[in-house]
């Protein structure tokens, strides 16, 4: 187990280094260089040159790369171009909002999709096709709805028509009630897409387990159906479900960018879109890196969890 973890950790390190390298060189592919792109036509040649020297852009590419790696190692991501604020500070300020949305979505998704998927599997197992088909069909449509469109429809119905949730207003982590009210709709929207995937996986893996011998044994021992379903079947079907929760995290990150933009929530997704619109490449580079790191680490953790809890997996 330990050797495996270390091996995976080494692999993870190589991937992260690759990601950093890719992001660095891609950003250097911008026609011209970041400085002229950022400054537009407003600065003279000499001023541009001074800025280049300041940012080390006159050095060789390899030196720039090494300097970049060095600054990453001490978590120095530089400052934003327009406001000159340290980027890491902006990210840390925005992170709680994004994390609240992500965590809220995972909780809501698990609470709804696992009972729903289990129910669908049970119905399919018992031969009641109609309810199973209905759940599977609704899950498919939810899965395919583009989240930005769903957001607007929810905004239209729940905020504008019914007035249940505020569509705008400041959000701070210090005011949890306001935060909850503001992230309720985004969480609902993101959950819709996640619920579909999760319910489908739950259905498949529970259905598989329901025809196992130990489930029959549990039934023959006279346990109630509910107990058999949740204690025996779901527990053994849980592993693929946990894996899918982990792997669908990438989709969740994609989704947070969209909902933060629509619901004007000050999370890191909004920083990203803002960074692109103001051509702040330093910011974009850092954020893309940041997202990739979160994604890679979650995948790594999922893989380890899977191996810890499934004794059948060989190392």
């Amino acid at each position: 187990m330990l050797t495996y973890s270390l091996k995976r950790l080494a692999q993870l390190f190589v991937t992260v280094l690759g990601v950093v390298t890719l992001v660095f060189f891609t950003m250097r592919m911008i026609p011209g260089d970041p400085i002229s792109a950022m400054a537009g036509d407003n600065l003279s040649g000499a001023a541009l040159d001074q800025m280049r020297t300041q940012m080390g852009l006159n050095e060789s590419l390899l030196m720039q790369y090494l300097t970049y790696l060095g600054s990453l190692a001490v978590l120095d991501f530089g400052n934003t171009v327009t406001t000159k604020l340290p980027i890491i500070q902006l990210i840390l300020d925005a992170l709680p909002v994004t994390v609240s949305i992500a965590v809220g979505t995972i909780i809501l998704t698990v609470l709804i999709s696992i009972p729903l998927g289990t129910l669908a599997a049970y119905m399919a197992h018992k031969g009641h096709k109609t309810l199973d088909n209905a759940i599977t069909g609704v899950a498919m449509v939810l899965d395919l709805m583009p989240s930005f469109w769903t957001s607007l429809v929810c905004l239209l119905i729940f905020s504008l028509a019914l007035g249940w949730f505020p569509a705008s207003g400041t959000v701070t982590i210090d005011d949890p009630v306001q935060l909850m009210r503001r992230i309720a709709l985004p969480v609902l929207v993101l959950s819709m897409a996640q619920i579909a995937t999760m319910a489908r996986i739950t259905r498949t893996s529970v259905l598989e387990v329901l025809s196992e011998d130990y489930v029959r044994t549990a039934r023959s021992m006279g346990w109630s159906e509910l107990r058999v379903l949740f204690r025996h079947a779901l527990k053994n079907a849980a592993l693929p479900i946990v894996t899918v929760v982990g792997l669908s995290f990438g989709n969740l990150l994609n989704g947070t960018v969209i909902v933060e933009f629509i619901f004007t929530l000050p999370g890191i997704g909004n920083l990203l879109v803002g960074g692109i619109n103001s051509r702040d490449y330093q910011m974009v580079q850092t954020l893309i890196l940041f997202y990739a790191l979160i994604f890679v680490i979650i995948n790594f953790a999922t893989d380890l969890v899977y191996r810890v809890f499934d004794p059948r997996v060989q190392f």
Partner: protein
Amino acid sequence: MTQEMITLPARRWSDLGTLRQSGLWRLLGNSRIQLAIAILGPILFLTIFRSMLPLPGPLQTNLQAMTQPPSLGHLFGTDRMGRDILSRTLAGVQISMFVGFAVALLALVVGLVMGTLSGFFGGVIDRIMMAITDIFLAFPSLLLAIGLVSVLGTGMIPVVLAISLSDVPRFIRLQRSMVLSLRNRAYIDAARTVKASQVWLMTRHIIPNTIAPLLVAASIAAANAILVEAGLSFLGLGIMPPEPSLGNLIRDGQSYLEQAWWISTLPGVVILMIAIGLHFLSDGIRQVLDPRSRK
């Protein structure tokens, strides 16, 4: 019963032959594909022949008919400049279809070639290829596309490239894993013993057996590409106005949600229908081409 058991392996051997002869009929006979055609057909038809429809052009403004709700004259209503939303939506569908098709084709071809080489030859090529795909798979797909678009710029070609780059590694992985499992089959060994060349083995014995899953993956990739393009354009990073795409149409209506609900919601319904259609299509192709799921 016994007859079926005899014909099944025979059908497998000549799978490609039957595909050529009756493949189209089998595809058309599948209920999922019929459903897909019923959904996608009318949308495609209207999109292709939209210039012949009695509709104003997608960019044509009409100040006499600003922000009108859906009516018989304007089925999807008009926006704040009096442009017909249905006409703009159809123009957007054309772009979406192009993006979906281009991304699926690009990912399919590149994935097929690189994945086959990687899986067939193994060794250093394989290891380098896997390291590279690992790096690309470390990004959530929309975020990779956002990052690339910020570098490549906005517009059709950058969007297609940006979306493909997140799909290609998945196709390489898929193709590679299939090639790996086929590489050591007995029938490949048999072909080797009669001195079949490497190219012959790959093109005649391996690739034909991997096409079906790749096609299924391609139709899913097309649906996904359409959604990602819409997402990018919605964020203002994809196809730029005034050129209408489904994403920027929805973005357009976002600020007028309260006064004109139809600008954003109706194009979204069309995206959803296209996505559902492509989903059924991929399901149908899978059912027809995969002998195991055949009943």
